[in-house]
């Protein structure tokens, strides 16, 4: 029996991979509902390794390239790519972004208009990362819990793991000295008039923004990156920056309703990459940072490989640093 503490992204993806490898798995979470204690509820849910490479190590691609396929077995994945745009005055940002990334094609005003008719005439240049995808984080986490249970995983909510913990996936709560919180803030908008079908990234030297459609006129916008452990509600500064950026994507968002705002703490190691860490008899999977949905599947495969070196197929590239 493998006992996991934490039924967030790291805990549930690991539970599923361990169960697939034949283990009996029990997952404990102190929250009474799936996802309630997980910072992933505020995530964008982008499966965008090529865009993320702009500001992250190559591992986001080697570990994340297959994430969309992994998730597609579990939850609906929208494979419509990512459109990266910038206001005319910040065209230099687009040039820089292009230089630091791969897996895109350059698009002009006409291409942008045919990809996203709502943005026609608003942007003259962009980058289209066709292979990227996104999912709905809250639904995905529930579906993931369901898939794990179908595989025989026992999930016990509202309870601390009794006795020994084999795998600690408690995020920022974990007792790891080089783990730090990076605060992220988001908002959920509802617009009846604007239809955007894929993830949009708006580049700006100070306030890069992503907008992820959730369907039915709902749009998630995020996400700030602040070196802080504060869990207080979104600040006016951050919210006005996020909303201002949404307005720049389309002025019609001025009429959108702000349905929700949120702030959470992403757990991160100094290199902003996740890793397995052995501490006594307990293995930690932590540090998913802003790449939870992207990197959790590959990391979970590594967890399974750690517990069952023989039985697991290496479906993903490795990153172990115990």
């Amino acid at each position, binding site marked *: 029996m493998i006992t996991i503490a934490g039924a967030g992204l790291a805990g549930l993806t690991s539970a599923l991979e361990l169960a697939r490898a034949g283990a009996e798995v029990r997952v404990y979470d102190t929250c009474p509902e799936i996802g309630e204690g997980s910072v992933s509820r505020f995530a964008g849910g982008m499966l965008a390794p090529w865009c993320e490479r702009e*500001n*992250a*190590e190559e591992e986001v691609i080697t570990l994340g390239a297959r994430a969309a396929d992994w998730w597609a077995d579990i939850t609906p994945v929208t494979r419509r790519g990512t459109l990266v745009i910038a206001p005319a005055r910040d065209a230099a940002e687009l040039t*820089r972004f292009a*230089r*630091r990334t791969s897996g895109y094609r350059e698009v002009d005003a006409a291409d942008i208009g045919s990809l996203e008719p709502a943005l026609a005439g608003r942007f003259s240049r962009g980058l289209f990362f066709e292979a990227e995808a996104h999912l709905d984080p809250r639904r995905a986490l529930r579906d993931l819990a369901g898939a794990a249970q179908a595989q025989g995983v026992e999930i016990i909510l509202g309870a601390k793991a009794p006795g020994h913990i084999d795998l600690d996936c408690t995020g920022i709560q974990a007792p790891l000295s080089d*783990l*730090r*919180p990076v*605060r992220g803030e988001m908002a959920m908008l509802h617009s009846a008039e604007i239809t955007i079908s894929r993830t949009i990234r708006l580049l700006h*030297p*100070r306030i890069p923004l992503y907008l992820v459609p959730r369907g039915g006129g709902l749009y998630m916008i995020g996400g700030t990156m*602040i*070196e*802080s*452990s*504060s*869990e*207080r509600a979104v*600040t006016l*500064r951050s919210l006005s920056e996020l909303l201002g950026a949404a307005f720049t994507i389309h002025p019609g968002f001025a009429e959108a309703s702000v349905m929700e705002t949120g702030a959470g703490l992403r757990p*991160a*190691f*100094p*290199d*902003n*990459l996740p890793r397995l860490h052995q501490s006594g008899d307990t293995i930690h999977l932590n540090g998913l940072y802003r790449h939870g949905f992207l990197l959790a599947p590959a990391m979970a495969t590594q967890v399974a490989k750690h517990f069952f070196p023989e039985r697991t197929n290496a479906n993903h590239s490795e990153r172990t640093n115990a």
Partner: protein
Amino acid sequence: MRIYDTDISVPMFLGTAQYPSPAILQQAIRASGCEVVTVSLRRETSDGTGAGFWDMLRETGARILPNTAGCHSVQEAVTTAHMARELFATDWIKLEVIGHADTLQPDVFALVEAARILTADGFKVFPYTTDDLIVGEKLLEAGCQVLMPWGAPIGSGQGLRTPDALRAMRAHFPGVPLIVDAGIGRPSDAAQAMELGMDAILLNTAVAKAGDPAGMARAMALAIEAGRMGFAADPIDRRDMAVPSTPVLGLAELL
């Protein structure tokens, strides 16, 4: 260079925002060899603590110069400076009072007022200012012992937009440490500033947003050192004509 009774041997200050990761920031600090790093309080605390991040900064051994980036009024800047003094146990403060959210141009009137309040309160103020001589004088009157003129708008990477104004500043404030803060994009910009006789350079975006931040930090450190040595070595003046470096007299002239 001596600033507020502290000797600083490496004429480079590094900002700590916008790096891909704290690990890369640490590499950049080490590669530059700089002794002083600046950290923004306003943005990075958000009323909790940035403890994890700050601990990593302290590990580098660099001296921390907190800044008031993002403050738009005297009161905001003064409050932030007080928070910084408590959090980092230092009376050094890089004073920024931003006049406009988009251009990030300093509000020099509020800057002078905040500098006066803070120096009276025992702070050692490093004011981020323009290259205006009179503003510089007012800041010195307010008790500042160092001036930090811009090279170009923050984060713009334009290099020195007004080298003549910086040259004039050097001439006007011969004994005052001058640190170019903001606008440096490439190593040659930093070298140029040092050749004008500036005492140090403060950088952030040019290093943090480079493809290889540690490599750029090192390149900047070398350029700054080259510029500093070049200025100290008293460069020759420009001339309109060629000047032969070997004697012409006595050479066979073919008729």
